[in-house]
């Protein structure tokens, strides 16, 4: 038996002595986590509960994720929002105090450099970027807008994400003050006596929170959350299957410098004010390419879709997609077993001509054409609290 382990979760060419640890490393080990290299960090891929049960527990109760490897950056100054708009096709100026928005750093060709979250605290912007991209993102910010706002890299902060329908109760159990009421809202909150920045967000498709906490107090907060009823620690393995079922993109797999936001079907992330006819149209890297695709949808050659096979065999990243005549029409960018849908779930890019839901195509699974159908996403319904 040869173990072909899922590369993105379990393998890394980085020698372990150069890996960083999050402030929760000792806690993960004491909880029995299996630690693996991920984006330069030693991270828990699973705990003794196992990926399958961790996934289902998060959907049914509450799971606690350590996402401290992600980058946290503050942008200070009166020009910060306007400056950040020069790097993202997103309405940043319009983010109300106490609200958060999803965004994308684009390059001059309209490709995606990273995806990120922007929270307006009312006095500065709190930005969260992917671990694997953070050094490059920070350099990008410094180079392009470092003269327009003060960029503070907050390596001293950790990030915890309690996720699932039970996350609100878990937070309320240790909070002094009101927890954020709706999806993508946030503010400062005292949790277990610790001053935290909390937003009602996450990347599992469930209701939940992301908590920015001083690194030295992170373990105390994690223990307080794990002490609440029905909260289990959850590893990267379940994080991947949860986000895939939710139809959410993983940077480096479903998004990269060769995919545009339009091809990635992230049009919803680009508000009208930055589009043709909008008050602040363009003015971000790759604007002509991206606005060209938005203005002329027929010019978009490929797009990201969900795929559902007829059988139960999981179909993994990199598998070629073909039409009935055997022509290559696309590729799988994320694929695996979805515990909630109890079957395989797949995301990929295919030629627009074949992208309509219901279209039947073939995935070349171990050289054999395997029928799959284009479907809408998410695969598992979102549990966001929108009121």
């Amino acid at each position, binding site marked *: *038996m*040869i*173990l*072909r*382990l*899922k590369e993105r*979760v*379990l393998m890394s060419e980085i020698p372990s002595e150069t890996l960083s640890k999050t402030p929760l490393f000792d806690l993960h080990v004491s909880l029995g986590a299996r630690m693996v290299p991920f984006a330069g960090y030693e991270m828990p*891929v*699973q705990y003794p509960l*196992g*990926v*399958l*049960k961790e*996934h289902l527990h998060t959907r049914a109760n509450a799971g606690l994720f350590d996402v401290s490897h992600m980058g946290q950056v503050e942008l200070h100054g009166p020009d910060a929002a306007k400056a950040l708009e020069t790097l993202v096709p997103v309405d940043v100026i319009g983010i109300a105090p106490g609200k958060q928005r999803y965004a994308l750093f684009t390059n001059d060709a309209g490709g995606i450099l990273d995806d990120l979250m922007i929270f307006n605290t009312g006095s500065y912007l709190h930005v969260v970027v992917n671990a694997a991209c953070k050094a490059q993102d920070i350099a990008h910010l410094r180079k392009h807008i470092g003269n327009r706002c003060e960029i503070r890299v907050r390596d001293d902060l950790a990030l915890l994400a309690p996720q699932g329908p039970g996350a609100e109760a878990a937070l309320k159990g240790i909070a002094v003050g009101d927890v954020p009421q709706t999806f993508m809202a946030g503010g400062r909150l005292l949790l277990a006596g610790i001053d935290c920045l909390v937003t009602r967000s996450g990347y599992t498709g469930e209701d939940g929170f992301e908590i920015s906490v001083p690194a030295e107090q992170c373990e105390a907060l994690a223990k307080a959350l794990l002490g609440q009823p029905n909260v289990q620690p959850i590893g990267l*393995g379940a994080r991947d*299957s949860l986000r895939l079922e939710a139809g959410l993109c993983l940077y480096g797999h479903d998004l990269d410098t060769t995919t545009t936001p339009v091809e990635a079907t992230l049009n919803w992330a680009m508000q009208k004010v930055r589009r043709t006819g909008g008050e602040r149209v363009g003015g971000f890297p790759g604007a002509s390419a991206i606005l060209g695709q938005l203005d002329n949808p027929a010019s978009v050659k490929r797009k990201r879709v969900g795929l559902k096979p007829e059988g*139960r*065999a*999981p179909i*993994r990243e990199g598998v070629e997609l073909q039409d009935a005549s055997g022509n290559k029409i696309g590729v799988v960018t994320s694929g*695996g*077993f979805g*515990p909630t849908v109890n079957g395989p779930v797949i995301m990929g890019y295919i030629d627009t001509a074949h992208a309509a839901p219901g279209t039947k195509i073939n995935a070349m699974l*171990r050289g054999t054409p395997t029928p799959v159908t284009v479907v809408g996403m998410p695969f598992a319904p979102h549990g966001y609290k929108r009121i």
Partner: protein
Amino acid sequence: MTTRYTEDHEYIKMDGDIGTVGITSFAQDKLGDLVYVEQPKVGRKLAAKEDAAIIESVKAAAEVKAPADGEVIEVNEAIVADPSLVNSDPEGAGWFFKIRVTNAAQVAALHGEAAYKAMIA
């Protein structure tokens, strides 16, 4: 009945010339929760080290190889219906398939239990 182990973490339990093949507890633990099993067809003639069954866990894909030359005479359909049996009882109810071994010397050349335990220690 003797049990022998491959370098790739399959076991073969011999009863006369019939060998029951599966994966070891060490292997199932490394793979994590199994979600999919594809068995070889009964009657298929396998060569030693040939891919016989395909398995997928929540985090990995893998093949179960034939430990020795032989013909598949029975497959365990229970693990196709419920792959978690391989995790919960890999060397019992979670067996994969039975082969009629045609080259006993290949089985004899595999690790015994003590050697296998030393290998994974």
